[in-house]
Every structure is written in C-alpha cells, then in structure tokens.
C-alpha cells in the first residue's frame, strides 16, 4: 500500500459522448463512452441482450494522477457521476445520506453495467481517488464530497439523482 498522501490531478481528459442503451428483451441498461464524431445509435444483439439506443450526451472521461508519486488511477470503468438525492433508508446510498447530513454531497460513480449483471463496477481505488480529488479542490469549507460506486445503489435505474451530463445538446444530429 502506498504511503503517499496523494495530491490528485485530472489527466487524459477526453471529450465524447455518454451513450445509454437498453435491452428490450430483459430490461437491462448499459452505457459506454464513445469518441465517435456523432452519437452512435445502432441496434444490435450481444449474447442474450438486444441493445437499443436510449440516449446520448456530451461528456468527458478522465483519469487521475498523483502529482507527488505519479500513481495513475485508471477511471475507464466510470461513465459518469450523479449527484444523489436519494434518502430512501432501504438503499445504502440513501441511508448514508441520512447519516452524513446536508453538508455532505454524495456523488455516485456510474459504471457501464448499471444492472451489474457482470458483477463489476467502478474500482475501489477509483472511487477513493475521486473522493480525495474532489475534496482536495474544495476551498469554501461549506461542504464535503463523498463518492460511492453505483453498485451501492439499491436499484441504480430507479435511483434518485442528477447525472452530470450535457443533456439536450445532441438532438440536432
């Protein structure tokens, strides 16, 4: 384990589209980041899933690098961030929000497989680095940021929150 008190900076910032697809067979949701010049809207079959386009939003991806020790945290498994407004005590995120109070903002790091059928989510190292990075940028002392993985949500497709995405900017295509 590193003994470095990391000072994180964004690196590898890439602009593209967050594309969201749904399977009309089983209702699963998936998303991916596309660097294509326009939003891909293909329908295709992948194993048991029949994916169709649900939406595409301008977005960025990035990694985090420590300015002190050079450690790189790869965040390719994160497709976006969502400010949670959940206060449902049946949900771990909602329960955490109730415990931490109003001065703490909980952001959910969204992975590509929102139904978590693959069992994977945003890495623990990624979630920790994101929390450290955004808290290191805070200057006002008004608030604290906590980042959690989307697997912590009871049902991410029903979870209450505000996704940070440039909605409405792709309808001209």
């Amino acid at each position, binding site marked *: 384990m590193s003994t470095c008190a990391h000072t994180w900076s964004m690196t590898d910032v890439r602009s593209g589209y967050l594309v969201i697809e749904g399977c009309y067979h089983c209702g699963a949701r998936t998303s991916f980041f596309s660097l294509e010049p326009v939003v891909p809207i293909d329908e295709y079959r992948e194993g048991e899933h029949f994916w169709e386009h649900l939406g595409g939003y301008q977005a960025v991806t990035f990694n985090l690098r420590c300015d002190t020790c050079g450690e790189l945290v790869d965040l390719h498994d994160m497709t976006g961030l969502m400010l949670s407004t959940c206060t449902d005590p049946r949900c771990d995120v909602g329960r955490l929000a109730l415990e931490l109070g109003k001065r703490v*903002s909980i952001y959910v790091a969204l992975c590509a497989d929102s139904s978590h059928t693959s069992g994977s989510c945003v890495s623990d190292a990624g979630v920790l680095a994101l929390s450290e990075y*955004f808290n290191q*940028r*805070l*200057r006002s002392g008004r608030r604290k*940021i906590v980042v959690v993985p989307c697997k912590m949500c009871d049902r991410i497709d029903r979870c209450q929150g505000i996704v*940070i995405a*440039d*909605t409405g900017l792709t309808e001209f295509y």
Partner: protein
Amino acid sequence: MKISEVVDKTGLEALNGWEDEDLTGVYISDMVSDIITGANGCGLLLTLQTHKSLIAAANLVDVGAVVFAHDKRPAADVIDLADKAGIALFTTPDHTWKYAVKLFELGMR
C-alpha cells in the same frame, strides 16, 4: 473580490439567499462536462444553462456563485437544489461577453 462587490458593481439580481465570500476567479462555460474539468473552487461561473445538472456540477467543484447571462432564470426546483448546496445564484440582463467584460474591468481574472 467579494461576491457583494461584484453584485454592487455589475448590477446582479439575486435569485436566492447568499452569504458573502471571496471569489477566486471566473469560469465561463455552458457545458457541465467542461465545468467539472475546468472550473475552480470558489470561483464565479458565468453560464446560460439553467438546469439541475449545472448545479450538480457546480457543487462538485465548489463554485462560489453562478451568474446566468441574458436574463436567464432557472426553475424553482433548480433554485431549491442550489439553496441546499449553498450556491449563490444571480442573473444579469447582459449577454455573456458583455458581462465578461464587466468582470474583467473589475479586475477579475
């Protein structure tokens, strides 16, 4: 520069309650994906966007105050979200460039 000084000298209209604090700089953007990668803590964000995602991004990077150009006004639920986050919201009748010039002439960078 204090928020109150910017309000007084540039004729901003407050859209919610706010506490006076130092502003560290200015960032101009209409894309939330750009704001989370570029805006600095306690800065003034000048934008045309009035949706909730803007507040979610501004909160994440600790924006001190948001100024909506061209007399844009967010909906009540967006103002409520900003209140919870402690983000001051203002509007100006100026378009973005005209208001940016005012900030520059005030000495903000």
